[in-house]
């Protein structure tokens, strides 16, 4: 961890953001203690990578914020609208991560309005660990006002929401972090080289309030989220966490 001392000149990029200048320059990495509570993940509808990434991020955040003993027993609300169920199916108990297997409560909403209602109700509930939503496409009701409602509800209750948008265009939203996910070739398994291995996702953080955008190859390694930095330039050095680098290239208007 690098420490800024007052005598050093503050990087100019940080001074352009009012409030949280140091946080603004920090890069996202797995295991951050203070995660934003409302994230969106855009994913193709014919893959399960979106919800896979959402579950991995949710477990990472829950592990980082494990405050009390009963946090590990709280339920996870998984809301899907009908179009999302048709595109990607329902959760399957035997394929869920072992620590979430018996904690999932599934809500099958008929319309995006009902899915939004269910997510907001879940965010108001103090006994839930987190809420995972899946909404297909760009429904008219999921506009900026609706996402703002979700952000406010999440921040009031302190419960995280991961909203997976299947086959959707990144429209206006107040989500604090917005990811774009796609499946990546899986890790080679240990024994059978011709078999598919543990899942890996190509995740692009294209809009975040407190972090710089970037691309990672994320994978779930026995409950721990592993991130590998992908740089647009092939020959760039690997990521070293939030060591101060000359990242003046944060785009505000991405998305």
């Amino acid at each position, binding site marked *: 961890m690098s420490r800024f001392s007052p005598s050093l000149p503050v990087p100019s990029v940080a001074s352009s953001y009012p409030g949280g200048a140091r946080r603004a320059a920090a890069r996202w990495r797995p295991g951050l203690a203070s995660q934003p509570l409302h994230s969106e993940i855009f994913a193709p509808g014919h893959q*399960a990578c979106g919800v896979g990434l959402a579950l991995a991020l949710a477990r990472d955040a829950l592990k980082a914020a494990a405050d009390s003993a009963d946090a590990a027993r709280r339920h996870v609300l998984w809301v899907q609208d009908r179009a999302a*169920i048709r595109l990607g199916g329902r959760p399957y108990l035997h394929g869920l991560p072992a620590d979430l297997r018996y904690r999932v409560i599934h809500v099958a909403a008929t319309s995006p309005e009902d899915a939004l209602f269910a997510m907001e109700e879940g965010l108001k509930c103090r006994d839930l660990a987190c809420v995972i939503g899946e909404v297909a496409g760009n429904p008219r009701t999921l506009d900026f006002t609706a996402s703002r409602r979700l952000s406010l509800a999440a921040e009031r209750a302190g419960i995280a929401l991961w909203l997976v948008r299947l086959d959707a265009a990144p429209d206006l939203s107040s989500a604090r972090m917005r990811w774009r996910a796609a499946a990546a070739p899986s890790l080679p398994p240990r024994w059978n080289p011709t078999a598919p291995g543990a899942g890996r996702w190509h995740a692009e953080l294209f809009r975040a309030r407190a972090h710089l955008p970037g691309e990672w190859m994320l994978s779930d390694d026995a409950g721990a989220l592993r991130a590998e930095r992908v740089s647009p330039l092939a020959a760039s050095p690997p990521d070293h966490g939030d060591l101060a680098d000359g990242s003046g290239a944060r785009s505000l208007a991405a998305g």
Partner: protein
Amino acid sequence: MAIWLMDLALDRWRQVNRLARGEGADAAPLALISDTAHGPRIDAVNPAARAAGAAAGMRLADARALCPALAAVPSDPAGDLACLEKLALWAQRWGPWSALDPPDGLLVDTTGASHLFGGEARLLADLAAAFGQRGFAARAALAPTAGAAWALAHFAAHSRAQPAILAPGDDPMRLLGDLPVAALRLDGDVITVLRRLGLKRIGDLVGLGEGGDPAAARDALQRRFRNRKSPATNPLIRLDQLLGLVPEPLLPVVAQPMPLVQRQVTEPIRHRALLDRVLADLAADLQRELAARGSGARRVELLLWRVDGEVIMRRLELAAATRDPAHLIGLLAAKLDGIDAGFGIETLRLCASWCEPLHAAQADIEAAAEAHGTTLAGCLDRLAVRLGAGAVTRPVPHPSHWPERAQRWQAPLESEPASQGMLNFHQRPLKLLDKPESIAVLYAAPDGSPQRFRWRGQVRDVVRVEGPERIAPEWWRERSTARLRDYYRIEDSCGARYWIYRHGLVGDGRGGAPLWFLHGLYA
């Protein structure tokens, strides 16, 4: 006191069809039947059928051979039991405590209550009249123990001059000794054994036969039935219960009146604001009612009587027992949208038709934590009210190897069914499609695994594959023509991983060329 309703099933059938005894359809031979593994079996017959040769316990086909005109009506054992429960409560008019004696008997404790009816004989006469008025054929007997009363009710000779009453001071064997051993409430095979041993009457068991020694008879029976521990299989235990030497615990029937609150308004309600106000009063009343019993409501019914005679009903099911008036009002308000008050609502009733124990709990000491958010049960209730009861579910394992049947959906707060630990030999997909989608395999490797396929209009190349994992259909449930599935885990060139299967084998004789389906998506 034991009451035996001799023809409970038939009496109920007559009441349902509004027939008097021996009238209309009851004049012809008729039997109540239930379906068994060996075909329909007769549960009860009416007098005309009995005269024609049919009897309870026969198969319908055998009875039809004797009496071709025999009409068959399905019996209703659940309805009979419900009727018996109601009769058990009603029979508390003769004593403070009653118990069921299924399938067709009742036990009432009349200790110290017979003088209210003018003596025991008059009590029995009153009972016969009361049951006769309700259309049930009943026989009753009074005795110091339940076993003796049961034996007398079922097997003693009944007449008006000599009612079946065993007074506490009497010698029990005077009345009971001549009854057959079936009066001891024993299982059929034990009765057969006793009959083969030559012990036909209760008196034979206690050694009252000619030249019998009571101690020797008891010793012999003790040795013969030393392995039988349950009362219904051991005649000695039953005999001791009959004589009152060992206690016989019985489970009483206790009436549980439904918590119910009601308001009648002088001026019929026509506007929603007033209705909400009265509803809030009712919910507060219901909370007091439930708190006094230490229970919470799982199902609440709201009935609104309109001036013109219409009744509007709204039903609410809750995920966990609650009596919080604010919660109930919030849920009911969502159900009352679009209600038609007509000329006004004059009576409102709120009843909790399903209650569960809910004891007063310590509220959160910190008031802020209470106000912070809803509880899980409250959240699920609100979701269920808006989205429908079936929309909020939880996956639970089910003992099956067939992928769709290996998980089931149940209400979220119900306890999980007992299940065996899972064997994680195979990786299962994160999500399963509701219905497997057909895919067109364009090119398959010589070993049968697909190399290129089309799904949802897009051609995908398979890069890595693992399989097959053969899953055979459950032959004990499926038809013999059900085909097996060969599952493959595959990964396409862009990294998406799927669970696909081939439905059947070439040449398995269960259909044409096997088709391919995509069933699940891996994360």
